[in-house]
């Protein structure tokens, strides 16, 4: 019985309750929220240290009986994949709190409510990745919708009601389809073992023997839910709306973490529970994945709204992740998991810098900007760094994961890999073109032109009303930049945690690496 994961679950929840009662005092609420988030980060580091990559499939486990009639246990545990995702959550939440520190909230909303919801989300997200009982997973999968629904619906942009409801309905419908499959595997286990169970490790041994047709139906139930979450084309249209209307901080968690529940679900549930169906349906998923890469990239090129732009780049990136998962090699799989982490860092940063641009220019539209690097060179530079990570330049974190996904997918799926690799060129196009329009060229846009004192005027620092980054903003972005570079040059510590779990997942599917290791 390990208490680490339980602490990780309960601490943000406690923080959320405390912060919720500090409504009157925004500053105290923020400080308390940050304190809880940092404490969570410390525990996550301890969990990382305690985890043994060469050890059991699931570690740091704990289990309490919940509903005996259906064999449901509140059981938790992590493999390497869940561990890195929980570490990412614990890292991003304090960053998001710092990034949302000075957000202008809609009329009548208190900061306490906002930060309480963020912490509640953290508990929900940790629960999704830590649950080892399929029913508990389902509960967290649905529960995490609630705080996000309120974050978007209460604190979002002008069109927030529509976006929040769209987000909620998509996820809910997906979840219900999944519930059917969850009950399906329970029934299958009852038929085979005599008593039903939702325990993941037990179910894996049961469902893999189901006939292919049954596996396909059950697989699809999970898959649809995850494909909406991840999101894969054509189930993606909720994301640009939700991403655009969500407040920046919630957007970071939405794209950085919540969407990864989908890709995590592929790895933890679709593959090990239904190995035959996974292999049978892999070509279909690969088509969706590659379509996502190309379609998402082309749409990102065509966006006029910066936040929608970030959402579409994510759709392209999720295509890469799905490709890596369903290409069935340890390099591609490890690359996909690393991609999940890296995408959280780089797209999180991209969301944050877009928010910082918007806070200065007062508009989401790209056309309202131009030549901004002249006014805010540091913001321009850090925006560029986030962009480089997004286009997977070597030396940044994302290169390692994108490279691993592609080189690992190539032996099994050369055609899909080459098609997806075209996304590399498109990524350079959408990132650099956005950067050019917002930061380069002559100064444009009402807010910016006012700041320099009229169109074509020389920059006068005395009257510039568009300030460069302040200390808080720098402190928020600095850890992201540091991780981008460190993981770009030395990803080995993370890969060491990921690789054995990916290997275990692939052997549960029953596939072996196309390129065998020599001498081992």
């Amino acid at each position: 019985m390990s208490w680490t994961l339980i602490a990780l679950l309960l601490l943000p929840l406690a923080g959320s309750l405390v912060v919720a009662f500090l409504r009157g005092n925004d500053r105290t609420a923020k400080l308390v929220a940050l304190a809880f988030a940092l404490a969570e980060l410390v525990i996550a580091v301890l969990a990382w240290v305690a985890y043994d990559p060469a050890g059991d499939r699931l570690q740091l486990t704990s289990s309490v009986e919940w509903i005996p009639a259906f064999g449901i246990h509140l059981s938790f545990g992590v493999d390497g994949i869940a561990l890195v995702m929980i570490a990412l959550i614990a890292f991003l939440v304090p960053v998001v709190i710092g990034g949302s520190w000075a957000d202008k909230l809609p009329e009548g909303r208190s900061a306490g409510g906002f930060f309480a919801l963020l912490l509640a989300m953290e508990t929900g997200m940790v629960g999704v990745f830590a649950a080892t009982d399929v029913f508990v997973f389902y509960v967290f999968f649905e529960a995490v919708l609630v705080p996000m629904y309120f974050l978007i619906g209460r604190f979002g942009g002008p069109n927030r009601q529509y976006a929040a409801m769209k987000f909620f309905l998509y996820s809910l419908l997906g979840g219900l389809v999944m519930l059917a499959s969850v009950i399906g595997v329970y029934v299958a286990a009852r038929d085979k073992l005599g008593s039903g169970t939702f325990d993941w490790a037990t179910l894996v041994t049961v469902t893999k023997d189901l006939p292919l047709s049954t596996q396909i139906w059950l697989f699809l139930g999970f898959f649809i839910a995850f494909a909406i979450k991840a999101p894969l084309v054509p189930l993606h249209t909720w994301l640009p709306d939700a991403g655009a209307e969500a407040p920046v901080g919630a957007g970071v968690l939405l794209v950085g973490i919540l969407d990864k529940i989908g890709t995590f679900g592929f790895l933890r549930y679709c593959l090990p529970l239904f190995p035959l169906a996974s292999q049978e349906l892999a070509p279909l998923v690969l088509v969706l994945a590659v379509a996502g890469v190309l379609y998402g990239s082309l749409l990102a090129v065509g966006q006029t709204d910066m936040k929608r732009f970030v959402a579409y780049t994510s759709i392209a990136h999720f295509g890469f992740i799905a490709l890596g998962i369903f290409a069935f090699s340890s390099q591609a799989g490890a690359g996909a998991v690393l991609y999940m982490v890296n995408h959280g860092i780089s797209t999180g940063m991209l969301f944050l810098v877009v928010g910082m641009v918007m806070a200065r220019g007062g508009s989401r539209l790209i056309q309202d900007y131009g030549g901004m690097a002249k006014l805010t060179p540091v913001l321009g530079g850090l925006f560029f760094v986030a962009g480089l990570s997004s286009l997977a330049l070597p030396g940044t974190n994302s290169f390692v994961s994108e490279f691993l996904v592609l080189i690992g997918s190539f032996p099994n799926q050369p055609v899909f890999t080459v098609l997806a690799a075209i996304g590399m060129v498109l990524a350079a196009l959408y990132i650099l073109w956005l950067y050019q329009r917002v930061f380069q060229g002559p100064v444009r846009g009402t807010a910016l032109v006012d700041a320099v004192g009229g169109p074509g005027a020389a920059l006068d620092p005395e009257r510039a009303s568009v300030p460069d980054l302040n200390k808080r903003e720098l402190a928020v972005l600095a850890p992201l930049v540091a991780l981008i570079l460190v993981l770009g040059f030395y990803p080995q510590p993370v890969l060491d945690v990921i690789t054995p779990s990916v290997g275990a997942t692939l052997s549960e599917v029953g596939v072996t690496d196309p390129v065998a290791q020599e001498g081992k």
Partner: protein
Amino acid sequence: MTEPVAASGIGSLAWLLLALPAFGATVLLIGGRRTDKWGHLLGCATVLGAFAYGVALFFETIGQTGERTSELHLFDWVPVNALNVEFGLRLDPLSLTFVLLITGVGSLIHIYSIGYMAHEAGRRKFFAYLNLFVAAMLLLVLGDGFVTLYFGWEGVGLASYLLIGWYQYKPEAASAAKKAFLMNRVGDLGLAIAIFILFKELGTTQYADVFARVGELSAAEVTAVTLLLLLGACGKSGQFPLQAWLPDAMAGPTPVSALIHAATMVTAGVYLIARANPIYNASADGRLVVMIIGAVTLIIGCVIGCAYDDFKKVLAYSTVSQIGYMILAVGLGPVGYALGIMHLLTHGFFKAGLFLGAGSVMHGMNDEGNIRRMGGLWRKMPVTFVTWTLGYLALIGFPFLSGYFSKDAIIAAAFSEHGWRGWVFGGAAALGAGITAFYMTRLLFLVFLGKPRWEDLKSEDGRAYHPHESGLTMTVPMILLAVGSVGAGAFFASGNNLANWLSPSLGELQEQHGVLDHNVVNFLVLGLSALGVLVAWLFFGRRAQPVERPERVSFVVRAARNDLYGNALNEALFARPGTWLTRALVFVDNKGVDGLVNGSAALLGGSSGRLRRLQTGFVRSYALSMLLGAIFVLGALLMVRFS
């Protein structure tokens, strides 16, 4: 192929080569304005330090006997089961030669930039980018595997992007930077896929293992790899059909054009093919394509070079053309690898010198680049004139200067091929030499000789021209490069010095006797070059030139002025259809896909009216959804029971 040993002696400190300039770049970028006072000095010091270390390492390696090839393992970069991408350095004659070129020419251009960029507000940032470039370029040539090469490859692309876009508030500079990065990424795609094939078939991407096991690849695989690597080379080196970005890249400051877009980065494609010589040796088809690309590009480059009136763009197309020669040379295989590298080195000297001379002229002429607004400048800028002219003579192959040895050797090697290949490739290369003499002489007459045409004119910003010689930080590097332009070729060629030194990396330089003998070629090229000079004198030296370019010109000239319609073709084939595709997809996504999915969701809810009602009451809608879910559950249960 030589098996590398572990690096020892001062070789074990080779990481300093990367660390020094990388350190400079980091300090300057993070330090910001605080480093304004001394930033340029730090930038120069780190590269000079790397050069000093490079020289020491070079002499230690010369002192060794045997294969002179060692590797320095730094750390495992991307290890996942069968794949182990190491981060390590390969120290052998080929990489050390490049280290000296990059840090040597790099140091000169850093020093030159102190003067050239003196009036720029963000000069330290410029030096940060230059340092970044040197670090990335050194990684490119020192990396011990294809993935570390790729790292440096994209790294120099980044530095190139930043420096082309130095004047980023000018829309054309920003666009040129983006264009360069994008066209390079198309090439990088080829390089990446080549790496994927190597991993699939051989399970490794490290040079030592790949080269030792080339024989395990099938003929089709080898050819595929050679062609994909060539695509990468075309992107980076501005070769047909990816040449269009290089002339636009002249939007960057002139020292950048000299260092990155003439002497070092754009020659990376030649390095790649030479480095991968064990793979190219295994595919005659692959090498034939390389030769064709080289020959086509060298002709395209010098034809367009004849038509431009922009000083730097003429030199840029000249670079495209000269790299065409190098690509042709390495395409020849064992008879050409070392010759390609020799021309790369001499070209590094004289083309960097020509660019710095151009920069010196423009610096003294209110940043004017139009050669029709120049003339007679030799009086005003004697040092620039003399050093530039020496570079000019070296480029057109004046006897016993650098280009005479390196370029003629390539032409002779092309003629030493048998049958139609000898005639076609040798003929193209010789013809190119004649045209090169023509367009370079045209530059000489229009810029330095003839009557001054600038005296009554004003530059765009309304100032009169007061051409003057540049300061010492600019002239000294020009003089040193001129010395190299004069003497390097003779030094490299005498007793096959360079080819012998490079043989552990490239194999022995072989000779063959094809359609024309070396001496015949020698006279032929001299004759063609003299003819080119003569024709240029007839057109541009003998009579006074107009300030405005003549518009009533033949179709050929018009085509050349339009880059032989390369950009128009790109526009029609990629840019415009791409724009339409993107717009159509955005429309479809907003209306079609979204509507479809929302519509089916509404259908599930009963009607679109109910969907709207879903949005009004949270609890009721949840209940309805639960009902829906229950139906699914029931369905699934039945499915499981009866299947």
